[in-house]
């Protein structure tokens, strides 16, 4: 029993590492993606749309396997969690891009027009007028998606990454009752996802723009 919990807690570290890494990747990719999808010209919108369709249309597990086996990239082979971070980050970038786009679109047109009429520049309009209003909504949505992302880190066990589900599986193969091992891992997953759900709802209630809901 102690072996099981020791393993699960060790695995939790890797689970959280992949999670944070994938969030960083998806933010780095999601910001330009939202810009592409909000562009005036059709060409960047087409590219953005294709990117989102690929990220969302291919199951996360297929992304992980493709990145790990497909890109014969040294660091991925040496450190498989990196492959999981990149793959899950690509998938999540589509959702982050949408969240940023929806957040910006949720700010009433009048706010953009008023900023323009007052003679504010692009950076000031974005930084001082639009983002302060749009940010809580974006953050709430991105937090909600990060719950799905956290659960998807379990898929990394398929390419042999020793995260939490991997340790539960190992414990079962050395004789632990599968119900005990997997339920124990499940309890730890819930201990992470349920508070995140509350956090997302709490941020949402904080947002200034009530119209969106």
């Amino acid at each position, binding site marked *: 029993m102690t072996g099981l919990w020791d393993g699960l807690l060790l695995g939790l570290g890797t689970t959280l590492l992949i999670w944070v890494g994938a969030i960083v990747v998806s933010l780095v990719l999601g910001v330009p993606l939202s810009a592409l999808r909000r562009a005036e010209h059709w060409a960047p919108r087409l590219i953005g749309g294709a990117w989102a*369709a*690929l990220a*969302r*249309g*291919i*199951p*996360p*597990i*297929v992304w992980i*396997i*493709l990145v790990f*086996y*497909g890109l014969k990239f040294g660091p991925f082979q040496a450190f498989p969690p990196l492959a999981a971070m990149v793959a899950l980050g690509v998938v999540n970038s589509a*959702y982050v891009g949408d969240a940023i786009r929806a957040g910006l679109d949720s700010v009433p047109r009048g706010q953009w027009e008023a900023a323009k009429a007052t003679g504010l520049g692009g950076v000031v309009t974005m930084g001082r007028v639009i983002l302060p209003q749009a940010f809580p909504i974006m953050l709430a*949505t991105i937090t*909600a*998606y990060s719950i*799905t992302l956290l*659960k*998807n*880190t*379990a*898929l990394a*066990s*398929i390419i042999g990454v020793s995260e939490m*589900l991997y340790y*539960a*599986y190992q414990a*079962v193969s050395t004789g632990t*009752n*599968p*119900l005990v091992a*997997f*339920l124990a*891992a*499940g309890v730890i*997953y*819930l201990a992470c*996802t*349920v508070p995140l759900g509350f956090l997302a709802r709490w941020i949402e209630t904080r947002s200034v723009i009530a119209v969106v*809901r």
Partner: protein
Amino acid sequence: MDWIVDLVERVMGLLPGLWVSLQLTAGAVAAGIPLGFLAGLALQRRNRWITWPIIGLVEIFRGFPALLTLYLVYFGLAGFYPLDAFTSVVIAFGLTTGAYSSEIFRTAIASVPRGQLEAADALGLTSWQRLRTVVLPHVLTIAVPPVIGIVIISFQGSALAYAIGMKELLGSAFSQGMLNFTLIPELLVAAGLYLAVTLALSGMESLAARRARRIAGRGPVAATKNLAATATAA
């Protein structure tokens, strides 16, 4: 032109796997949607002894990674009653699908206009008649688009069956790839097939959303939008 022949051959080789994936999806949806509807119906009750256990179950199966639920059913229940892989997937993903869709049905049922329920009571309909002739038509109209969203999630989730050794689309891409010593092309073709089915389903989803908006008129439009948001958040 050789590459076209090559591509067609690879696609043909993976079609049986795609068929298994579609069967798994159908099984999970057929098990999960009625569960979700019943949960959504039960959550309308004021009685805590009914709602709290259901909320608990929904939170559990929404919070567990789907792969963990699959292992729990496949390895965990094996001690009581040996299940084959297909049945395990249907049970496991039926539970997750039920948990995800319960929220859709809860909101859809709650969005039935009060006046219609009162009218049904005034006409002296039994609660079963009220469910069948007032609530269900309303729910079936506005819940279709988010339910298609759930079908998409189930279809993508069916790839996890590979982890317990099933020869669905991902599993057959692996075995075909090992056979031909070309893993990556097979995986890319499988990814393309997943993408094609997903895009077809999301096309249906937007058509259904437009239809729901047209039929339901002004009232439930906002409800449909919210439902779509819950479905994608799931």
